[in-house]
């Protein structure tokens, strides 16, 4: 019995250690914070689907119609080197909590992106810019707060829609003819964020091509929470257009299987080359080189992983690979770094 007591005391003490390990001995785990060390993972030629090489000739029309090199317009443009920023998921913790909108965080992030050298030619955002009652009145002030913060970045931004641009539920599906129809959040997203780009549907695409004609890139901006057969056919058709790089951007990642587009897109994506699927939804940063997926969801929404708020800058390298640097928004230090083939 005495030994049993001793064992129980030891076990209880162990419980203390486990339960409180984070309160007193929490040190940097190589992630966020002022120590912000850079971890480099080089992954090249991972996916067999990255064999799109014969696309250059098909890109000339997009190049010639996009105006001055170095300036990206809503339809795309030309660049000497592909470079873009990725920011995702910016919303308060509670519905209609406009007073709790993470204005400070997202403002700093956009200021950081603006100050990056070289400044990214454009940015893409991965959805969830609000947490508002889908039929209430807080959507507009929250989107206004976001867009005000975004003004710190002087180049063009291409947004995708998140579940909070529909009803807030991951499984929600908005748009004409869809289950959740037209919500106020959806309407405001369309008018305030896509309107300036001239997009009339919640999904769209643009191309960015090399000024020397050596490479082409298409960005397919999917509305996962406004999914229908028309969008599926559009996506399949766009993916069939050969380009050197293919980026598919949507809100939910591949494991968020309750989102309307995730399961049907699996088969569509599997039959075409893919450089990278860029998503958000999960409020952290994750990179899956083998699965060719990057999650950027740490743009001010309540953090759910272990990294700090931040952003990503993608940069084309001389050998054609793309480097993805994830930055801590306070230190502007690279926290994680990946390099992936086209």
């Amino acid at each position, binding site marked *: 019995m005495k030994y049993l007591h001793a064992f129980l005391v030891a076990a209880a003490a162990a419980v*203390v250690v486990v339960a409180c390990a984070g309160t007193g001995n929490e040190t940097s785990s190589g992630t966020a914070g002022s120590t912000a060390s850079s971890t480099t993972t080089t992954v090249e030629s991972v996916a067999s689907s990255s064999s799109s090489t014969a696309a250059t000739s098909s890109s000339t029309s997009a190049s010639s119609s996009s105006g001055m090199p170095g300036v990206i317009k809503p339809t795309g443009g030309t660049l000497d080197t592909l470079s873009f920023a990725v920011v995702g998921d910016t919303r308060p913790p509670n519905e*209609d909590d406009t007073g709790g909108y993470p204005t400070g965080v997202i403002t700093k992030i956009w200021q950081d992106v603006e100050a990056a050298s070289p400044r990214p030619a454009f940015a893409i955002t991965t959805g969830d810019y609000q947490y508002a009652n889908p039929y209430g009145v807080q959507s507009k002030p929250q989107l206004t707060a976001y867009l005000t913060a975004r003004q710190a970045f002087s180049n063009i931004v291409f947004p995708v829609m998140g579940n909070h641009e529909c009803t807030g539920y991951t499984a929600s599906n908005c748009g004409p003819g869809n289950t959740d129809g037209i919500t106020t959040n959806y309407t405001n997203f369309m008018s305030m964020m896509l309107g300036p780009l001239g997009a009339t549907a919640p999904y769209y695409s643009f191309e960015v091509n090399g000024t020397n004609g050596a490479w082409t890139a298409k960005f397919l901006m999917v509305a996962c929470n406004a999914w229908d057969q028309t969008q599926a056919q559009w996506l399949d058709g766009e993916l069939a257009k050969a380009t050197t790089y293919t980026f598919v951007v949507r809100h939910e990642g591949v494991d968020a299987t309750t989102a309307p587009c995730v399961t049907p897109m699996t088969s569509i994506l599997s039959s075409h080359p893919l450089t990278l699927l860029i998503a958000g939804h999960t409020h952290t940063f994750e990179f899956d080189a083998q699965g060719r997926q990057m999650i950027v969801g740490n743009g001010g929404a309540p953090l759910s992983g272990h990294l700090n708020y931040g952003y990503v800058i993608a940069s084309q390298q001389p050998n054609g690979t793309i480097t993805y640097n994830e930055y801590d928004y306070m230190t502007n230090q690279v926290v994680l770094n990946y390099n992936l083939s086209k």
Partner: protein
Amino acid sequence: MKTIRRGALLLAAALLSIGCRRPQERPAPPAQAAALRVAHATGPIKPDGEANEPDWNAIATRTGHFVDARGQEAIPYSEARFMWDATNLYVYLYAADNDILAHVKQHDGPVWIDDAFALHIRPATADGGVGPTYSFDVNPAGTVTDARVAPGGKPDVSWESGIKLGVDLDGTLNDSTGQDDEEWVIEAAIPLASMGLAAAPGTRFYVDVGRCDTPRRTKERRCGAWGTPGAQKLLELGP
């Protein structure tokens, strides 16, 4: 053996209290210290987890971002909010969580081993003396362990607070395979009388609240609290 197990449980709880620097071991700050006002709700609060009463956003007293032991914003994000009315202290607990885990389903069980909040409330006495502490551990399954801890004593889990709460899960409980998990919210009503608190403006009490979590794809325990872990905040029921 049953008695020994129970004793061990209580011992574990007591050690947890020590290890986590829970409030009962600390000397009481003077009751005359500046207090943070808790807003009186302007309408009914239904503790269903939805927290969709406008008061939660408009007037509730907020802790803001919990911090870790280094004083930096704790990740994952957590916060708490407070309100009161003629009967209850209302508590809103928000947890961002990419892997919502809760295996303890038994009332007064070891809730703290799950993703869980720990809330401690101790009535303030006029002379700054030490009174009992009322502790509440709650996980995203809605399981509560409430206990009364007399000064220098052990947690008495036979004490029942009469707490009512609702949970809102944005994600799937105990499913670590997907990326659907975003957050969970506890909305609770704790009868003021159960803690010996008068439901009247000017009533003062000390609070500390924290949360621990195990993020997805890790076995690391990450904790945050309102201010310094274990440090008590003096609250006062406002008009």
